[in-house]
């Protein structure tokens, strides 16, 4: 996408003049229904709070179970032990969801994608570039640290991947680096690499230990670190691609502009469909 030009962001008072940028409340439910739903939600929240306050002290079972088996898991952080060892399959499915989301976004209207360098000289953005000089190296080092330290302290692949993605988004959205797109095989390799590596590890372990993704004795720690590195890279690339390589907001049919200029393409399509249905 083009880096934002100084006059681009609409001022707050101009927002009402542009229908797409204002929340359309004309189709809200009746006030009575909204009040009832609000009361129900509030009662639920108060109820949950009361259970916490008045419910009494009962020993939590799961932390005890995890603490019992923590030495076998290969890491000393209980969260990482659960995520990458005891329930590693769930993490595999989470990464598969990311891959599916990426595939869904990439399968949308390819013709309307707006990516690549904008034509002409990009305007100098000294404040943004100064921020990038400071923020991107810090993000890089911190994300490496977070991936590594996830085995003993709070951290892990998702947090590190998101931080790395933040640095990547700063670089590409500012126009300093050509945005990577789905056309690049490297990008696609990284996007698929998380799931592929994880599944491959599980399949390789199947004949060795007899179960999918069951780490052998003493191999848990190096395998967890290796999988976390793969996940971090994969998550970072997927998140940057979600910023960069997405289709423009497509219009179902430009000729519908003549029927309804409210700035709501879905509404226009529905209105046109209704008009066709009526004899």
């Amino acid at each position, binding site marked *: 996408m083009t880096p934002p030009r100084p006059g681009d962001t609409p001022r707050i008072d101009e927002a009402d003049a542009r229908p797409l940028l204002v*929340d359309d409340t004309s189709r809200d439910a009746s006030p009575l229904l909204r009040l009832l739903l609000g009361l129900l939600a509030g009662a639920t929240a108060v109820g949950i709070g009361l259970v916490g306050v008045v419910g009494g002290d009962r020993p939590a079972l799961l932390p005890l179970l995890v603490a019992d088996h923590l030495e076998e898991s290969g890491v000393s952080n209980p*969260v990482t032990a659960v995520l990458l060892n005891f329930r590693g399959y769930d993490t595999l499915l989470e990464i598969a969801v990311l891959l599916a989301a990426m595939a869904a976004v990439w399968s949308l209207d390819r013709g309307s994608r707006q990516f690549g360098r*904008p034509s002409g000289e990009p305007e100098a953005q000294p404040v943004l570039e100064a921020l990038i000089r400071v923020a991107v190296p810090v993000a890089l080092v911190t994300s490496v640290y977070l991936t590594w330290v996830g085995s003993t302290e709070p951290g892990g692949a998702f947090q590190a991947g*998101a931080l790395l993605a933040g640095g990547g988004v700063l670089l590409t959205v500012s126009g300093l680096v050509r945005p990577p797109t789905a056309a690049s095989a490297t990008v696609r390799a990284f996007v698929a690499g998380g799931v592929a590596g994880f599944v491959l590890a599980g399949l390789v372990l199947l004949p060795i230990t007899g179960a999918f993704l069951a780490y052998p004795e003493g191999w848990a720690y190096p395998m967890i670190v290796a999988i976390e590195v793969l996940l971090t890279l994969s998550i970072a690339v997927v998140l940057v691609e979600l*910023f960069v390589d997405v289709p423009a907001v497509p219009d179902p049919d430009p000729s519908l502009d003549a029927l309804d200029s409210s700035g709501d393409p879905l509404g226009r399509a529905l209105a046109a469909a209704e008009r066709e249905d009526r004899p």
Partner: protein
Amino acid sequence: MTLPPDFAGGWMVSLLDLAVAVLLVALAARLLHTRNLFEAIVLFIAYGLTLSLAWVQVGAPNIALAEAALGAGVTGALFLNTFQRLAERSREGSGMVDPEHGDRGPEAGP
């Protein structure tokens, strides 16, 4: 009442917890109520960061890191990105078309 195992205690911490809880509800109410989408996006980012504080206070630092990075950072930035595109489209739709590029947008070239 059960407290997280590393609760440091003290009335100042309880005051902070109360402030975070009130701030969460107030931010959520305001952001759901406002009609200005840009304001809603900014409040959403603030909500994510406040929620990250709440996660720390209940003793879940992993979730706090993830909430700050993903909930406030990535999702907030994605919303701003979408808002930018909507702003460009609504500028095109309102008739302010770039005379050099026609209505294909500034990236299309002459």
